[in-house]
């Protein structure tokens, strides 16, 4: 039996023409949204902020039971491994005592050498921690959603997000107590880096996969698989010397690197208050 159309009015010629116009209109709106996002007029970020403000708490609530189960599982396994863990920590403690002495000597030596070179450290950057509540990575975009808790109003788009291994991404959007982070593996991410050993520069680009591509390297760069790439600080967008990735493969025409983090395993991140944009006063002076 053919199903009757009971909910909406039956289509006639006028309605069909009107419908076609509306479909064309929606296509036009979608195209316009993409263009406006590309130009970045601030309108789209306003809309995205509002939507994130509404959706992030829902996602957070949904993930809470799973998170609780995961913590309970981890705690149980930790209790079961406590004896081995204690033995391991005792050994580590002895090693650390030795390292502490070595570090003190190195620190003193470093201070002397710095004085000789007139080297100055990067200014201390204040930071806040945040919890990852969701990861939204697929073939088309790679991002994290963070729960900021307190001091959320101090966090601005553009701030740097790191974990215990190194650079994770940048804050893209802040809405209420939630923020969206664009990962370094995202397709629009481009990071100026320098090889920690050879000091060869390059740009690390993402392509939404878990591999990064190193481009614009010198022809005779001395790079090897396993080398760590750190931020170069060129352009002022990022502070120098933050570990970013490890070189994975060096081909004839391409160099691939692997980020130091696994997106699905990040639980807590640190947000560095590093703002590269000049203040209103500086801008006025520049003008």
């Amino acid at each position, binding site marked *: 039996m053919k*199903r*009757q*159309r*009971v*909910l*909406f*009015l039956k289509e006639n010629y006028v309605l069909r023409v009107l*419908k076609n116009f*509306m*479909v064309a209109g*929606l*296509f036009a*709106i*979608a*195209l*316009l*949204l*993409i*263009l406006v*996002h*590309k130009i970045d007029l601030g309108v*789209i970020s306003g*809309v*995205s902020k509002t*939507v*994130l403000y509404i*959706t992030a708490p*829902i*996602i957070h609530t*949904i*993930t809470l*039971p*799973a*998170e609780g189960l*995961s913590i309970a599982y981890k705690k149980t396994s930790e209790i079961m491994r406590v004896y081995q863990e204690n033995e391991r920590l005792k050994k580590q403690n002895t090693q650390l005592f030795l390292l502490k002495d070595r570090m003190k000597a190195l620190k003193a030596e470093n201070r002397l050498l710095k004085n000789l070179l007139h080297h100055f450290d990067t200014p201390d950057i204040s930071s806040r921690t945040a919890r990852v509540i*969701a*990861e*939204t*990575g*697929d*073939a*088309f*975009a*790679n*991002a994290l959603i963070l729960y900021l808790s307190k001091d959320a109003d101090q966090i601005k788009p553009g701030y740097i997000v790191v974990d215990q291994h190194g650079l994770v991404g940048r804050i*893209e959007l802040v809405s209420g107590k939630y923020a*969206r982070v*664009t990962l370094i593996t995202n*397709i*629009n991410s481009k990071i100026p880096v320098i090889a920690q050993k050879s000091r060869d520069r390059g740009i690390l*680009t993402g*392509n*939404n*996969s*878990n591999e990064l591509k190193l481009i614009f390297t010198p022809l005779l760069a001395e790079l090897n698989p396993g080398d760590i790439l750190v931020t170069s600080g060129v352009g002022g967008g990022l502070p120098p010397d933050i570990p970013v990735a490890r070189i994975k493969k060096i081909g004839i025409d391409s160099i691939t690197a692997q980020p130091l983090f*696994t*997106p*699905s*395993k990040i639980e807590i991140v640190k947000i560095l208050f590093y703002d590269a944009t000049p203040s209103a006063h500086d801008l006025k002076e520049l003008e």
Partner: protein
Amino acid sequence: MKVSLKNFLTAILAFLVPIISTLVLILILFIPRDNSYWNFLRQAPFYAGIYFWQSQRPDIFTFFSAFILGVLADVFGSTPLGINIISFLVLYMIATQISQHFNVKRFSYSWLLFSASTLLTLFFKAAIVSGAYRHFIPLNLLAIEWLLIVASYPLFARIYIWTERRYIHLEERYEKVQS
């Protein structure tokens, strides 16, 4: 035809059922897992939903519903606003053409047509994203996403069938009572 308030409200609720059911599935898929491919699956309810509801119940699933789902997909997927909207409208158009030109009765044929439609849509979406960022999306990622979307279609379609039978048939019963 005189439209009563009750009939009008039923229509609005029926219009919301495809959107809400898709949204619920997406939220369930947001439960964290230590597997990066799990995230690829989050787009699947959108594709399955648009294809299913358009081919089964075009009276309650309009192009405007596809637009709303596009906005939601852009927000949940962190893609620039507009990319999923336009690709879902394309999928909606393909699904409309399929339902107009093919009288699909068997589920296997429907599945096959769904896989072809999603392949076209994903290529279209990849072309837009690649154009916007001037950087090609890796084909292996596209292939994985497509395979996961296609493989999960029977499951999501089953859920949508259940939803349709459970909630939307009510309005037909209501019509019978009226007549």
